[in-house]
């Protein structure tokens, strides 16, 4: 009886009591599996600062061995109002979040929300749900994506983007490129967080569709993207990912940090 208890009960209890971070083995042993975390947030949302801090911690510590977390902070614009607006907000991010809400069958958008690889969503400050989603996404096979020959000239960032062959003969994926400020700290003038100083990581300043690829093919293209205005001293990063047009699943991603 005691042996049975030790063999079965202890693992069961321990799995329930483990802390937030569990180091997992990668699906492939040679390279890290990229997993994209899109945090929909706003400086005008009182529930968002803990999610912003969690995303920053994940970006800095990269706690999942074998997994490369590719993080994006997308500031929605629906908390803007009363003469105040989130300086990083865009209706495009609100629309992207609504697209996900429809895909997931949600009654409403909400903040903070994190979407993992376009397939799973969770409250952005819920470390446990986020961990579970990252672990599940880490087991998916991904298409290799490479950023190379990156250089900057005045107002544009230039690079070459290539992918491995996409699996399958049907369907198509859209190739996205994002430019994001590495770190931002702002003093909030209005909204629910008025008077507070807030920090954000990977704040998306531009999210562009740069091409599409059909199943069974690969992508190779020189990309030139205008730099966002007034980038801070922490520099920025270029991110690229492949997203299935039908399932919204992100099947490949990469990024490169560039100092200003």
């Amino acid at each position, binding site marked *: 009886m005691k042996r049975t208890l030790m063999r079965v009960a202890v693992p*069961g209890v321990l799995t329930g009591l483990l802390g937030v971070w569990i180091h997992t083995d990668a699906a492939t042993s040679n390279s890290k599996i990229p997993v994209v975390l899109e945090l929909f947030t706003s400086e005008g*949302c009182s529930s968002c600062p803990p999610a912003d801090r969690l995303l920053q911690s994940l970006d800095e510590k990269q706690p999942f061995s074998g997994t490369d977390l590719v993080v994006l902070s997308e500031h929605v614009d629906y908390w803007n109002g009363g003469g105040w607006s989130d300086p990083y907000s865009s209706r495009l991010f609100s629309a992207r979040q609504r697209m996900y809400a429809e895909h997931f069958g949600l009654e409403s*958008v909400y903040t*903070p929300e994190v979407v993992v690889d376009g397939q799973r969503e969770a409250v952005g400050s*819920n470390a446990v749900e986020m961990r579970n989603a990252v672990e599940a996404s880490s087991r998916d096979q991904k298409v290799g994506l490479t950023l190379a020959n990156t250089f900057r000239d005045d107002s544009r960032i230039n690079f070459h983007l290539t992918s491995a062959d996409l699996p399958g003969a049907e369907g198509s994926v859209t190739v996205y490129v994002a430019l994001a400020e590495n770190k931002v700290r702002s003093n909030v003038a209005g909204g629910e*967080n008025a008077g507070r100083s807030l920090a954000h990581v990977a704040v998306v300043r531009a999210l562009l569709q740069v091409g599409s690829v059909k199943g069974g093919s690969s992508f190779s293209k020189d990309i030139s993207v205008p730099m966002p205005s007034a980038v801070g001293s922490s520099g920025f990063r270029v991110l690229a990912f492949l997203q299935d047009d039908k399932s919204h699943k992100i099947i490949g991603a990469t990024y490169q940090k560039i100092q200003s």
Partner: protein
Amino acid sequence: MRLFSKLSTPAKFVVLGAALILSPIYPRNLNPVQWSLRAEQEEVTPGSPVTLHLHAQIADGYHLYSFTTPAGGPIKTTASVQDNLAIRDFRIYQPKPNRHQDFTLNVPVETFKRSVDFLLSGELPKNATLGATLITASVRYQACSDRICLPPVTKIVSTSVIVQPGAVLARASIPSGYYLVSGPKLARAKQ
């Protein structure tokens, strides 16, 4: 629970451990406030006051901001009654909210939890048309929990009263503890 009690002790530990992993820690009800409108009296006499109860049922873990929560913070609740030829000049009363300093927001806020009854008080003209009259109200509100905030949303609720002579003359009675809030204006029904 009966099924759980029939499990062996080791199996109970496994189920509990799985439940800890799988169950969401934070409640996430994306439609946490249910609204309804009810007339205090179903039959009303022309020339008499009409009182309606605008009821909000708020899910556990969520709160609703009041009509008078200070500006510069969360979005306050607003409401209006659509143009109704029979009933005019509605005023809205709310009970005393929970006013407190929200240290996360660093602003004072006024909230309601669990449920709240707002009162809409109007008057029936003496020459009101007899018969069933539909009254429609729209309410715009924001709800938050400790972990998430939902965007403001507008809900439409309706009720009806029967206008007929000889109904018991209603008296406008606003209970103690309620106070008049600024607005709403009578909304013109969109053509």
